[in-house]
């Protein structure tokens, strides 16, 4: 008897929820704002779907409705990816420890 691939994906999903649960609880509360901006950046990995949709078919189809929606999604996700990672970097660069010589 063969297992539906959906079950495998569901397993990944459920296990990832548990990983997320434990990893996020160990995030220090002072970094909760960077946590939000970085989760925002990584959820934009939805861009992979947008790329497949945008580049589908030959060049004649590139301005078909489905492809155009793909391109629009690429722009939105790109804003998020660059904006999210850079703003996280900017924030994290500000967190400094006490200087010892004081």
């Amino acid at each position, binding site marked *: 008897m063969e297992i539906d*691939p*959906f079950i495998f*994906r569901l397993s*990944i*999903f459920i296990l990832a929820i548990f*990983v*997320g*649960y434990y990893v*996020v609880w*160990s*995030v*220090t*509360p*002072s*970094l*909760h*704002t*960077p*946590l*939000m*901006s*970085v*989760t*925002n950046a*990584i*959820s*934009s*990995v*939805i*861009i*992979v*779907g*947008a790329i497949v*949709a945008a*580049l*589908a078919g030959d*060049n004649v189809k*590139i301005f078909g409705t*489905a492809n155009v*929606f793909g*391109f*629009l*999604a*690429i*722009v*939105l*996700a*790109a*804003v*998020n*990816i*660059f*904006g*999210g990672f850079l703003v996280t*970097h900017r924030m*994290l*660069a*500000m*967190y400094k*420890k006490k200087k010892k010589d004081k």
Partner: protein
Amino acid sequence: MSANLLAVFYLISGVLFILALRGLSSPETSRQGNFFGIIGMAIAIGVTIISTGNFSTGFVYLLIFLIVGGSIGAYIAFKIPMTAMPELVAGFHSLVGLAAVFVAISAFLNPEVFNLGFPGKIKIASLIEMSLGAAIGAITFTGSIIAFLKLRGLMSGSPITFIGQHFLNLALGILILCIVFFLCNTQQEYLFWSLIAIAFLVGVLLIIPIGGADMPVVISMLNSYSGWAAAGIGFTLENSALIITGALVGSSGAILSYIMCKGMNRSFFNVILGGWGASEESSKSSSKEQKPVKNGNADDAAFLMKNASSVIIVPGYGMAVAQAQHALREMVDSLKKNGVKVSYAIHPVAGRMPGHMNVLLAEANVPYDEVFELEDINNDFANCDVAYVIGANDVTNPVAKTDPQSPIYGMPILDVEKSKSVLFVKRSLSPGYAGIDNDLFYRENTLMLFADAKKMTEDITKSL
């Protein structure tokens, strides 16, 4: 590239994203974590482009769109002031939501590309997954727009409620499920469009009844939704990187919402059903405002703090509004020169998003090991000489412990009252967001400093 190899690369991206979140467990490893996240994203995008095998016109357009979006994102990331982080995050969530909707639409219109069947004959499972992804994405989009407008002050922060609101939301929710059911049976395109339209409406209706003070919960909740939307699309596209990321982000947002609700001692449903405090209850306090208050000036405050051996600073949203974080750091520097021990106490719901105060203090070069969370510092108030409350109010209100009638009863508070003296920087005696009077104002050991937080702090520094 074979499908199996592609899947392995997506798995690697997923693992790198987990490491990115893991890095945030301490500020020292966090920068490395962010770097892992960037690598994971680069891998996912790179292998996807290679796998499509399209390097002609489409690829050129792809690069142009990537660069346009990327430059907008980078520009915003460098320009945004740290006080505006909550709006920025809300705005970014709306983009993830809309991107999810667009990808779902592409998949619906052109299912062959994703191996989901043919237009009019899409696999039922895929149809359910993409409908859910699109609906949650649409709710995230409009919900985040409303949150953005409220945070930015373009829309009033007070809750908008009307009779039958919850009933309407419930009815729309059931309608969405019915549409998904008929969509699976008939595969009609118009059903898919109406599904998205109704979900847009639900997003608006869900966020308008929630007041300004509850924004930390709303932002965390929308963070969670954007994750579930991504996971829904991930199931449709059979992409493990998306499924893993969606699950991570979804649970991350859910945990943050939980922490925020706990910080206010309110249940999640209580926040979501909305309409707490703000305008209606502020009238109650008017009768009490006759009580005597000790009013001080900058010199008094400077004298008190200079002669103290330890001072605890309690920042709140008012500090962010007044942009007083840099002035505060300068004041603390002069205090330290006088040999005073200074630490900062941060309540979980201070500010408009989780961790907001910590970022502002970090921006002002306050070392993160001087900043403490509620449970770590609360016992120290009893031994501290001066508590300097700047822009915080409800989170210090002792009524949360004493009066079961109070709307904030049971909320964990910072025990500012236990310190020998309290300096309260505030523009007036008006109550805070919860709309309740703060008993602390009238205490014997409290000195009120009526002024703008930034100006008062600067004046104190001068007198030191």
